């Protein structure tokens, strides 16, 4: 019964994803193969990979922190990427544009992630670590604000264009890098899925069942950091998909088992991300993806807060 539901939900989800991707590819009317190959296809592929990566990161974070609103944004990983990008665009270190911004953002995300990983060894309580992540995000955002305050208009413009988020700036070689990061992150999530299931029932229960709670949390965080770092570096800080996609996946497939939820969130993350990109492309001049992502994501978050807040009870 459950198996049949999973198959039906999977087929519907895949069909929806393919239809959205096709609409996103054809958005803007007929185009020659060059435009399709060099502009639209990389954009759709990036949206798919970024959505899948952020959704899978959100799934793992919500499980290890047993909190329905946890995602890489909340844990300060995206804030770390913003600081990296801010330093690259606003300081005297670099004014060389796109690639250095992406690299700096990646280093910033990894630095934030490293601090959280080290903190996860010190703080064994899920809620303490979550509060630590939120505080880290505040501190890093404060540093970004200081940099913004003391920079020139040109640098500020470059930083704002990165922070608005976009799937349109990647090349095929960037996409290969992104795909490798997503593959590594997904492999880690699959390896840790048995632990992700048991940690939902509390640290004490997991320990009593013989699980190594610290290792489960460490593996999941490492997976999230690799994927979020890569996505934020190439696409800017994108929120909401990490929170919303896992909830939609649980609703669609009617289970919290990670055997199903890991592939299901990859699917729903891809759908949300491509839908957001499609909306941003429908405008005469493309809208910032981070904003359209929020427009797609906020109604779902409100539904979670007001309608059906049952996860992790």
């Amino acid at each position, binding site marked *: 019964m459950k198996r049949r539901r999973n198959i039906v939900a999977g087929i519907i989800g895949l069909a929806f994803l393919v239809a959205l991707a096709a609409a996103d590819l054809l958005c803007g009317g007929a185009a020659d193969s060059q435009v399709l190959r060099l502009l639209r296809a990389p954009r759709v592929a990036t949206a798919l990979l970024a959505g899948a990566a952020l959704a899978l990161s959100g799934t793992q974070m919500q499980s290890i922190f047993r909190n329905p609103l946890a995602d890489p944004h909340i844990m300060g990983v995206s804030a770390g990427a913003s600081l990296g990008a801010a330093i690259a665009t606003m300081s005297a270190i670099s004014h060389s544009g796109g690639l250095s911004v992406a690299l700096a953002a990646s280093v910033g995300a990894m630095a934030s992630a490293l601090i959280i990983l080290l903190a996860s060894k010190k703080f064994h309580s899920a809620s303490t670590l979550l509060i630590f992540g939120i505080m880290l995000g505040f501190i890093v955002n404060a540093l970004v604000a200081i940099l913004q305050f003391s920079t020139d208009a040109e640098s500020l413009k470059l930083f704002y264009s990165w922070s608005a988020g976009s799937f349109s700036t990647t090349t095929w070689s960037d996409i290969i890098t992104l795909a490798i990061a997503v593959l590594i992150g997904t492999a880690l999530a699959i390896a840790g899925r048995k632990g992700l299931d*048991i940690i939902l029932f*509390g640290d004490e229960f997991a320990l009593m069942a013989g699980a190594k709670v610290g290792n489960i949390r460490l593996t999941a965080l490492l997976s999230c950091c690799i994927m979020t770092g890569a996505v934020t570096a190439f696409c800017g800080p994108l929120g909401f998909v990490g929170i919303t996609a896992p909830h939609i996946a649980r609703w669609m497939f009617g289970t919290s088992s990670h055997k199903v939820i890991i592939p299901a969130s990859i699917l729903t993350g891809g759908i949300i991300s491509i839908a957001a990109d499609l909306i941003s492309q429908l405008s005469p001049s493309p809208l910032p993806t981070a904003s359209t992502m929020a427009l797609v994501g906020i109604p779902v978050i409100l539904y979670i807060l007001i309608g059906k807040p049952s996860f992790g009870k």
Partner: protein
Amino acid sequence: MTQKGNILLDIKGMTIGHRDRTLYSGVDIEIRESECIMLCGANGSGKTTLLKALAGMKGEGAEMKGKEIIMIPTRIPKVEGFTLREFIRISCFSQSDFAGRLSPEQESRIDQALETLGLQHLAQQDISTLSDGEFQKGSIAAALVRKAAIILLDEPTAFLDAENRINVLKTLKHLCSTPEKPAVIFSTHDLHDGLAVCDKVVALGSDGIVRTSKTDLKETVKTIFKDKQNDNQI
């Protein structure tokens, strides 16, 4: 006190403490097959600490071979999206393979455990829809699947209403008489109901002494509140 089955765990001179603080020293506890033991004491007396200490032990006798000492925490969240059978499967973390699958033998043990506890009809039900009492029994079923020689329950009736409380305590008593003969140790503040099902009492005294006694309410209360003149409360 009537002696039950073979000795599973014979502890002599154990020290129980929390971080740098010693709560009890020279503790002797003997646990036998099929024994139902009530653990009681005032709040903060160290009941959970004692259970955790017992959970970390390994029995050496033939009766303990291939079996485990399993502790069931007070409150396990009823996470939506898992059936009772899936929850039991997840509980068998150490027994399952890399993908979380159990062997056919272990799967049939789940059927047996569900039958022992009268939960077969709830096997495919989402655990978030079970009552607290049914879920508590599901946790006990999971311990049975894991071949528990000794099952430790930390306040299993703490959040239950009167009907479910008695139901769970009766289940514990019934469990001890099953062919696998597990010993059950449960902590509780509910002395009246607990004494009705247990074979012996381990009471953590306020004077720093752990006493094993017969199932007598007056004696148990005296032990727990040794220095507090509570005789008039009985």
